[in-house]
């Protein structure tokens, strides 16, 4: 098998058996970037020199018989909102174009400890606001399955690098579906962990009560391995939860006995693309054939999720992004004679932020402003509780819930840019998990007549990532949708 198709687990085995060195793996990865990324434009930059050095260190440690980490020699890319000391992190925004973090994110410390090779930073929608990567201030990323299509967003670059075989693993963040939606569009596995499972220290904030870091991979086993590394308590994030890190890989291949899967009838009514609906029906049949029981559950408030989210997330964002004032870091406008501090704030922010970021700051500021706080923000928080309670009730009857990840396969670049509301409705199936804080994953489950990937979403109760991924792995073992790379990217699938 050629490099692009090799999973992290394959590469780890090959390195352990001496079939390939870590240096060769990183060189292969850089080679695949060289041949494919001019078409995909998933990466903002690569750190070839430090990556080759890190790989060389892994080989040296291995030769010396030193203990190696769980990701030793595996190339990995980070979304551009994760801080690494001395390497730029811009959130794909002009505001942070020259921002060079002075500390490592918690997850970066963990990845370094496990000897992963940090290879570059991936394009995203500016400040993680968007569903297509078109809101990046720097470049448009293309879907590896059809370069006329968007990779999804906001973690579109992180999904595309894995889909195009450049790296086996990458890191994204998910506030309303920003890992799962691009995973579905690009035909890879993406996991949003339980809120608090992974430390947000060093993740540049969007909406702090919803943001969560998670893995992209080409199969469930790789995703489980990476999530196991990322998980764990960190005192520097006060919302990080101090519970034992789950053994996600240990029993992953063991099917869950008597699995009860919930489906929600409303998901299959209006707005769902026919081919996506068909793939989901087939997925239900696969689970039935594996002995699972499919049971209808109700989540009556789910239909209000997008509305509640587009009050709560912009409100939190308007506060979080107030820090970009042109003083401590970020863009500062050139001032003319006689212009004052307020001019500096207003001009710096007007020049540094793109349209979608301004739109959300305005929406959030409006929702929190005097006279509207109760009608919008408080109302949305109450609806949020009802949405979370729906999940609690559903999980008394079933072990996991199965739904589409997105209403359609990948849309074309430019198709939705002028209609923000229609773009927002792309998140209709994914937003609930963020509002409720529960773990959810998108897994490839089909292909459209145009050859675009289709994803299904599994959701589980809080801190039940092991159950979530074992249920996903059951499906993966019975089907062939994972581990596919488009043939035009040098992979195995047309």
């Amino acid at each position, binding site marked *: 098998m050629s490099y692009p198709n090799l999973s992290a687990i394959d590469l780890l085995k090959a390195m352990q058996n001496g079939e390939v060195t870590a240096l060769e793996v990183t060189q292969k990865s850089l080679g695949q970037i060289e041949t494919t990324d001019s078409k995909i434009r998933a990466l903002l930059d690569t750190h070839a020199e430090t990556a080759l050095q890190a790989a060389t260190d892994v080989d040296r440690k291995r030769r010396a018989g030193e203990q190696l980490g769980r990701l030793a020699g595996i190339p990995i890319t980070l979304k551009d909102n994760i801080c690494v000391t001395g390497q730029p992190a811009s959130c794909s925004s002009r505001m942070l174009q020259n921002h060079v973090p002075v500390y490592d994110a918690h997850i970066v410390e963990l990845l370094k400890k496990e000897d992963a090779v940090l290879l570059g930073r991936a394009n995203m929608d500016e400040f993680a606001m968007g569903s297509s990567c078109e809101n990046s201030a720097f470049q448009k990323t293309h879907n590896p399955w059809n370069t006329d299509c968007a990779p999804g967003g906001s973690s579109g670059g992180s999904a595309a690098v894995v889909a195009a075989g450049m790296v086996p693993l990458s890191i994204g963040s998910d506030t309303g579906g920003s890992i799962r939606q691009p995973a579905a569009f690009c035909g890879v596995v993406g996991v949003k962990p339980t809120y608090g499972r992974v430390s947000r220290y060093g993740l540049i904030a969007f909406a702090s009560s*919803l943001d969560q870091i998670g893995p992209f991979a080409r199969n469930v086993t790789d995703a489980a391995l990476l999530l196991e590394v990322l998980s764990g308590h960190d005192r520097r994030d006060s*919302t990080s939860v101090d519970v034992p890190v789950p053994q996600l890989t240990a029993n992953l291949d063991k099917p869950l006995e008597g699995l009860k899967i919930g489906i929600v009838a409303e998901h299959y009514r209006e707005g769902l693309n026919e081919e996506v609906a068909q793939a989901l029906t087939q997925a239900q049949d696969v689970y039935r054939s594996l002995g699972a029981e499919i049971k209808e559950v109700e989540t009556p408030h789910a239909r209000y999720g997008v*509305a509640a989210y587009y009050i709560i997330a912009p409100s939190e964002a308007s506060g979080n992004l107030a820090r970009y004032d042109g003083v401590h870091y970020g863009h500062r406008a050139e001032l003319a004679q006689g*212009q004052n501090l307020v001019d500096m704030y*207003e001009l710096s*922010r007007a020049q540094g932020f793109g349209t979608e970021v301004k739109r959300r700051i305005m929406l959030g500021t409006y929702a929190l402003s005097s006279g509207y706080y109760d009608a919008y923000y408080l109302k949305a928080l109450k609806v949020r509780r009802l949405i979370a309670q729906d999940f609690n009730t559903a999980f008394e009857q079933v072990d996991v819930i199965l739904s589409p990840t997105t209403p359609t396969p990948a849309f074309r670049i430019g198709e939705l840019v002028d209609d923000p509301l229609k773009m927002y409705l792309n998140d209709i199936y994914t937003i609930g998990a963020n509002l409720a804080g529960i773990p959810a994953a998108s897994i490839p489950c089909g292909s459209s007549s145009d050859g675009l990937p289709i994803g299904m979403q599994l959701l589980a109760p809080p801190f039940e990532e092991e159950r979530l991924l074992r249920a996903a792995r059951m499906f993966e073992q019975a089907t062939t949708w994972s581990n596919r790379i488009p043939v035009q990217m040098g992979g195995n699938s047309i």
Partner: protein
Amino acid sequence: MTLSIEDIAKVARLARLRLSPEELSQLGDQLGKTLKYIDILNEVETENVEPMAHAFDVENVFRADVVQPSLDRSVALSNAPKTDGKYFLVPQIIESGE
């Protein structure tokens, strides 16, 4: 829900964003449409529902008040647009009083 240019300009001032007249009018239009959609929240009866600000009920997290190493001044200033090596510099705020 329609927002007047004055409403939108007020929000932009609160958000410290200097927007062009074209931006104000376009954003006003789009925000109006989004808020109209958000009005579906009024269909939901929330009389006795507690607002949920966080996914899980979190309590204050405390740590011992012990001095620990933090960033060096030069490092903390390294991303600042303007400094004198000791402080962040901003345009003059207090009138010189002459």
